[in-house]
């Protein structure tokens, strides 16, 4: 086996003998690369963001922004990472000033004040700068800044720049100083990368292949199994092993609750878990695909999921988090569950002894509990086809970008001649686990999709679940939001397009 090592800013750095629980961020900082900062240690602020070279199909690479505070450094064995230091240099005793276009725009436009969040912003922005789908042809319009005309250029489309820059790519980065306007200006002023840009050219070649990693230190082991058989065998012998994909939940456990699992099994690069197939009667989604990969892979084929993705955490999190992780942790406020319940999804559980398929509606059994047995792994999610045509995903939270649901509700209705032929409603935040709103579904099916039916169903919906008061919302508000979601869904499906649609 090769020595464990990570390539950072083009330089190979060995990482032998480090703890399986040492975060990538802490490893980078110990290497002297202190640009990435710890702001929250739970993937909320993005001060730790870095770029990593990820596979992008067809032998290509995509520079992908991720939080460095969550995954262990060992998960990056053999991979390529770029930090703010690697994008450009400031003038110093040994360096001339040579700023990356992203850095140049951020510096010139007042995009940094205290500067602490800035390296992370720069990395998130760079990932979007190199995003292959970004169409920068409108970038010549230019963006004004300065004092006389501050902000006046952006009234038209707040969240997409004239250069195709998607502002939600920065949804996982927090700044406490600037109020964001100059950062948005910097983002929207970026042109296209030049043809000789080395990071652009790097995207034309494959990302580093996954390779088996084995490491142990301080009483903990880190293993990246090379095959499904090996993984399931290890799980059978070690049912308490921490299965790790994006580490967006497990990393928080390590950082905030000091969990130190003795065995970590990295599954995020295991091919059988990375499938995405669109069959005639179902869609199969591998559980180790990141949500960003699922989003790109589905290419808007599932409108309900399309509504979900931008509301699921942040781009930084979606670049690492997986469907498998979101379902396996079984959080009562996981956001994929309501949507998948509405889509009538089922999950495939694999173990050394074989596979079984379980409807998602029967998967959750209690608070962070499920029918998943020791030694079992979520291998895939199945979505039956055809999809219900009339769908919506509503997330109620304090903040639109990157917040945790107080309540989320997903609707999937089939209407035949104005009558509700079938209804599936998934909810989170109103019980110890994600639920179907079965009584409300009952109140809808067979009735005309009318204001009266919606009002009646809303009254039932308000009584679904067993919501509680907590720091996010009162039980009373949660119940009200359940009812309002039905009315909102009705208004949205019947009003003139675009008029009543709120974000």
């Amino acid at each position: 086996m090769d020595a464990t090592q990570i390539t950072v800013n083009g330089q190979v750095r060995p990482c032998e003998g480090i703890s399986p629980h040492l975060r990538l961020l802490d490893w980078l900082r110990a290497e002297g690369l202190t640009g990435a900062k710890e702001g929250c240690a739970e993937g909320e602020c993005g001060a730790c963001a870095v770029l990593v070279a990820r596979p992008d199909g067809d032998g290509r690479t995509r520079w992908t922004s991720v939080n460095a505070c969550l995954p262990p450094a060992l998960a990056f064995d053999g991979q390529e990472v770029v930090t703010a230091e690697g994008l450009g240099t400031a003038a110093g005793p040994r360096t001339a000033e040579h700023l990356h276009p992203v850095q140049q725009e951020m510096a010139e436009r007042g995009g940094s004040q205290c500067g602490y969040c800035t390296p992370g912003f720069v990395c998130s922005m760079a990932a979007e700068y190199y995003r292959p789908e970004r169409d920068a042809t409108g970038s010549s319009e230019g963006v004004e800044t300065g004092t006389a005309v501050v902000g006046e250029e952006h009234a038209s489309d707040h969240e997409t720049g004239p250069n195709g820059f998607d502002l939600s790519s920065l949804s996982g980065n927090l700044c406490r100083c600037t109020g964001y306007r100059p950062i948005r200006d910097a983002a929207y002023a970026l042109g296209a990368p030049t043809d000789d840009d080395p990071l652009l050219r790097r995207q034309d070649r494959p990302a580093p292949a996954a390779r088996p990693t084995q490491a142990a230190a301080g009483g903990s082991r880190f293993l990246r199994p090379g095959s499904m058989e090996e993984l399931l065998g290890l799980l059978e012998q070690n049912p308490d092993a921490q299965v790790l994909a994006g580490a967006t939940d497990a990393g928080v456990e390590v950082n905030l609750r000091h969990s130190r699992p003795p065995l970590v099994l990295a599954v995020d690069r295991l091919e059988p878990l990375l499938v995405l197939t669109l069959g005639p009667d179902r869609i199969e989604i591998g559980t180790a695909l990141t949500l960003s990969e699922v989003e790109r892979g589905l290419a808007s084929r599932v409108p309900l999921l399309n509504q979900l993705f931008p509301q699921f955490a942040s781009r930084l999190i979606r670049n690492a988090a997986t469907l498998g992780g979101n379902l396996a942790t079984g959080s009562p406020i996981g956001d994929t569950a309501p949507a998948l319940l509405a889509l009538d999804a089922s999950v495939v559980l694999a173990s050394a002894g074989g596979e079984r398929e379980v409807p998602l509606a029967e998967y959750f059994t209690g608070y962070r509990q499920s029918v998943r047995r020791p030694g079992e792994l979520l291998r895939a999610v199945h979505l039956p086809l055809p999809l219900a045509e009339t769908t919506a995903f509503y997330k109620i939270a304090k903040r639109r970008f990157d917040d945790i649901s107080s309540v989320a509700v997903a609707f999937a209705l089939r209407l035949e001649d104005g009558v509700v032929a079938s209804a599936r409603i998934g909810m989170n935040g109103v019980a110890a686990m994600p639920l179907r709103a079965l009584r409300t579904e009952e109140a809808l099916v067979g009735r005309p999709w009318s204001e009266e039916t919606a009002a009646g169903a809303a009254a039932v919906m308000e009584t679904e679940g067993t919501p509680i008061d907590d720091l996010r919302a009162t039980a009373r508000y949660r119940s009200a939001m359940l009812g309002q979601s039905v009315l909102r869904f009705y208004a949205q499906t019947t009003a003139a397009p675009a008029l009543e649609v709120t974000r």
Partner: protein
Amino acid sequence: MKSLADRPVNPVVGVPVSHESAALHVTGTALYTDDLPIRSSDVLHAWPVQAPHAHARVTELRTAPALGVPGVVRVLTGADVPGINDAGTKHDEPLFPSEVMYYGHAVCWVLADNLEAARLGAEAVEVDYEPLPSIVTLAEAIQKESFQGDQPTVARGDAGAALAAAAHRFSGEVEIGGQEHFYLETHASYVYVDESGQVFVHSSTQHPTETQEIVAHVLGLTSSQVTVQCLRMGGAFGGKEMQPHGFAAVAALGATLTGRPVRVRLNRTQDITLTGKRHPFAASWEAGFDDTGRLVALRATLTSDGGWSLDLSQPVLARALCHIDNAYWIPNIEVLGRIAKTHKTSQTAFRGFGGPQGMFVIEEVLGRCAPLLGVEPSDLRRRNFYNPGQSTPYGQPVRHAERLHAVWEQLLGGADVERRRTDIADFNATHRHLRRALGITPVKFGISFNLTAFNQAGALVHVYKDGSVLINHGGTEMGQGLHTKMRQVAATALGVPLANIRLAPTRTDKVPNTSATAASSGADLNGAAIRNACDQIRDRLAEVAARKLNIHPDDVRFDDGIVTGIGFSDEGIPFAELVNDAYFQRVSLWAAGYYRTPGLHWDAARMQGEPFKYFTYAAAVSEVEVDGFTGAYRLLRTDIVHDVGDSLSPLIDVGQIEGGFVQGAGWLTLEDLRWDVSEGKRRGRLDTQSASTYKLPSFSEMPEDFRVHLFERATESGVIYGSKAVGEPPLMLALSVREALRQAAAAFGPGGRSVELASPATPEAVYWAIDRARTTSREAAKPAGMDAPVPSPVRAQ
């Protein structure tokens, strides 16, 4: 140069330049305090043992088990303190407490070779607690009369009589939430013992001098034996004015006891649970208006939640009382202030320093009374503005009150308010489930520390023989761009290009006895001190140049690195050459600068005087769109006109205005501190102690269309290069968002009703406001409920 406000030709101040560390920021090479230990060896890491009680006595502290954890080197306890066991200046904040005063209070600190060992060591420490009764909420404190510090009153006229005689009387109560600073860089200190016993402290501190003093008194040393340096801070916002001292003292104590460098860096959870926040307030008020909507009287009681110790609660309260008038003439007023003592973190400075809470109250009064008076809220505000010649309730003339009117007119015109009101009415008429509204609010904010003595500053300017310049001053850089402005001031005063000026980090052995970089005063005070130092050097150089050019020294001009005579078009001496000449003529090329703000006086007992050098004026109009299904909202557009005098650095000033506004909007709409107020085991625990539960504004909360204008031709006499302070005032412009939300919620109902809106105005709070507006709509004939202010039956006293 004649007066402080005068600018030479071609000044470097007033030019929009980027933050002086921008290139370092974007490349990740700017160093912060906690980037230093990684570059050292043999460093010890610290972890606190935090008590799981809101109030308890420590009956037994057994540290021996921690020493059994591999890597643990020492446990610091109160017994180790050679000097005074106090993290503050009032002897009410024991660094190592024997009585736990809030949930999470650190009772001792474990030092270890690595952070993991320190944490495990902290888990191994055994502490026995005897739980004591606790007070967690403001309501409990008021009911049990648990107060601390003075209870000052600001008064003028006869509020009681004026209320009794008022044509319209209303009353109400409101609770104002606190706010976590959430600087992205948590508290950090790094201390080692230097040559000859000097304790060298790197600290993320807004107040290096006080950090120095507290480290010295904890260690039993003199201030001359302790040096504090602050490279830069990753945000501070007031949260590093008083709070860093204890952490620096822990690190310093560890370093002196072990002989090894000690790093104290709080993780986010520790930072949120250990350090103070913006003061929550509760207010009750009675207001009287005449038939034309003019305020005739205000009587109010403001109770702040000071937490377990006084910290800065008294000056915060004083500023709240001095800003309850905001921009309004209130002839008869009586406002009592008091500070609750609760078992919570010790609440502290936060941008605005009580001013926001004071202003909140009067804007609440106007926002709730306007519909009952039948006056459009912004008209009601405008009618009550100060006019020239009037003075504040504490006796300070409101100089330049006409500027308030001019700012307002410019704002309403520039933001196209009249047309947009029509558009909004149309929009609301055609959208069943959405409502839009405008909120327009002014700000008048007093600049200077209320306590007169703090209004002084020092600077040190070195000119080297090659003409390069190194400046140092007492202010700290927290992102606000102070160092950028100071370089511009020095470049202007010496007439050299900006690139000639290097600024060295803030250190107590360069400039002693500094005030905190706070109260928006950093540029005013330190800029004037730098100017003073530069003027001394320039005057000396002018004599050297005058001799060489054969002219009078008064006629020497310094411009862009060339020294020349007035009216000379072709003859000039390069600055570096002149400096070199001066050296050989044995002319001193460095100077210490000093400044004290003239004309201030303040009687804290009577709450009367002229504590402020001047007032900063500003106004904002914000447009929101509220969703009737959820109470969720978008901030569609904000326009601001802000008086910053003649801006020292426009890009920096706009950045402060925008950032302050969004931070204020966070406080008023989103940021929600929740403590466990149950009687259970976690009573007193802060439930929102992480970024996942305490939400700051993100891109989705910024105004989608954000237009900031600096008020022009605004020279402020007697202030450095005619500028005004900008750090705090814009935060309070976010009251426009709150008032817009109130009006949008009201628009779901029939109008003419006072709308109560909880703070922060989260989507849930807005939803309930909508719900009340709709309910009122359905029961339009019924009188307003107990929630709404009603014509007061309260008898005048």
